[in-house]
């Protein structure tokens, strides 16, 4: 992925991914993989409906710290053990006010536990603690802890794909995302992370009571399904 991103000119400093690779080699165990990196800078195209009017976003920055299980073909387990950090930050400039603009999203993996609001195990949420380090004038950004959007688990590969497809125009990212090597890498991550996730959700209807999945609880990852009936 690092070389593809670099080769297509979409990311000129893929150092954070190389760092993650090195750390993955030294921190992983026989059953678990682990990596972390900070500040992978990806580009962002200007898009309509950006508010405030005239805001110019120019960097999307991904920082990740994950622990996961190595896939076992016979046991479809919850693929990620811990999502310590999965931050997507957007840096830019505001036109109407002479100040820098900032926004951030993060992917969380939380236990459903005793939460006041609906709280899917994997969710993508706006905000994140870094927003308060970056924004001096709170009037710039309105942040609410809701909605907590359920989202399938992602690794760095799926995170990059998410960013490219959400923040770049089709024309711009397709030079990379239509390449067969790229698709293969994505497909591999989808198979490892999304197949067990979605199969489990699928089983809720197709094979209720199925015990073949471990470390998954349907109402934990999809609390909306818990209608009490």
């Amino acid at each position, binding site marked *: 992925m690092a070389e593809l991103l670099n080769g297509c000119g979409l990311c*000129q*400093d893929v150092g954070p991914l190389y760092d993650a690779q*090195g*750390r993955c080699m030294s921190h992983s165990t026989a059953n678990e993989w682990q990596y972390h990196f*900070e500040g992978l*800078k990806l580009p962002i195209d200007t898009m309509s409906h950006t508010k405030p009017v005239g805001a110019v976003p120019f960097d999307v920055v991904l920082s990740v710290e994950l622990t996961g299980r190595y896939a076992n073909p016979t046991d479809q387990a919850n693929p990620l053990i811990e999502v310590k950090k999965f931050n997507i930050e957007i840096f830019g400039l505001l036109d109407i006010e002479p100040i820098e603009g900032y926004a951030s999203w993060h992917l969380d993996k939380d236990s459903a536990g005793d939460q006041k609001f609906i709280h899917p195990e994997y969710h993508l949420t706006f905000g994140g603690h870094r927003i308060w380090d*970056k924004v001096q004038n709170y009037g710039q950004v309105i942040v609410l802890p809701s909605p907590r959007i359920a989202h399938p688990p992602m690794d760095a590969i799926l995170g990059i794909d998410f960013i490219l497809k959400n923040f770049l125009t089709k024309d711009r990212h397709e030079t990379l995302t239509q390449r067969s090597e790229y698709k293969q890498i994505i497909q591999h991550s989808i198979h490892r992370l999304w197949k067990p996730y979605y199969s489990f959700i699928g089983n809720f209807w197709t094979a209720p009571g199925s015990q073949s999945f471990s470390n998954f609880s349907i109402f934990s990852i999809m609390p909306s399904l818990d209608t009490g009936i």
Partner: protein
Amino acid sequence: MEYKYFYIDDWDKEDIAGTIRGIETGGGIKIEHSKPVGDWESEYDRIASQSNFHGIILDLRLQERVSLDGNHAKYSGSIIAHAIREMAKEKKINEFPLVLLSGNYNMQQFFDKTGEDAFDLRVLKEDLTDNAAFEALRLRLFALAKGYDQINQVSKGDTNKAIEQLLSFGCDGLEERFRQKIETFLNKPTHDFASFIIRNLLEKEGLLISEPLLAARLGVEINDSKEWQVLKELLDGTSYKGVFMEGWPRWWMYSIEKWWEETIGEDVRLQPISASKRVDILKEKLGLKGLVAANKIEKARSDQFWTICQGLKRPLDPIDGLLIVGQENAFPWQSKQYVSYEAAINRISVENWKDVAANEKDKLDQLKTFYSRERIRR
């Protein structure tokens, strides 16, 4: 151990006595000066028959003053260097380090870049202005002579063992692409191996980091921190102990992260926290109250420093920087270099960074517009 360098310069002995004394002070290096012979064939024979030195220092322009035979030489230091590398390849002589020591004007006017590879080190005479500069050069001359000996002598049968011996670092912790690349240089001439190490490991931040970057990544302001030397001593186990170590003080980034995890704990990662937090933790855990945190450059938002601004030579989070031009062919183990918004907008020390990368130009234009408007509104 004392290493002897043969120094060919057309200047008279009394003109360069100060330079020689400056380099020799501190010990370990002995310099024997000679003017060029004058006649090329005789010069070639003289070098081919010399065996009592560990390296050669060459001036670039040897034509300006009278040579030993009373004429003006018609060859330059580059030509001698090229001939020496060829003689070594033909096994007529042993391999040894070559250093170019020239005036800036001559270097700009007459140095052909294609001849650059023959030299292990290029030094401008104008840069030798104080004791620190002489000391740095002395250490590099010492490191080169000692390092060439080490590379010549290491047994290359077991490649991993040879790499571990030369780098004084286990291959297990080595970045795989770097390990593969260095392996391809093991059986090449010593000069090629030495050049690879110097240009792609020691002189590029990445696997190894220099003292300013070490301080930046630990959040420490060197100049204001009384206990920086104490902290460096505590980090001795992470420093580079391989070939040429005397001339290029460096630290293994891999070992620094490991040290941080072992000393501070895995729960607090080094990179995602601010410089002041890093320094607070170091103060608390190590009892080094004299450490002072580095400050942000103007226009920077983050103090999670991880690089050095190439204009201001101060700590910077890459988030607040623009990539500089000419890094497309960097190896994966080398960190990219940045210039801060402040230095880029005001073209501070532009000779150090030349320009921002092509992809960053639009962003620089936006920043210039933005900050000029901000000034007006203030």
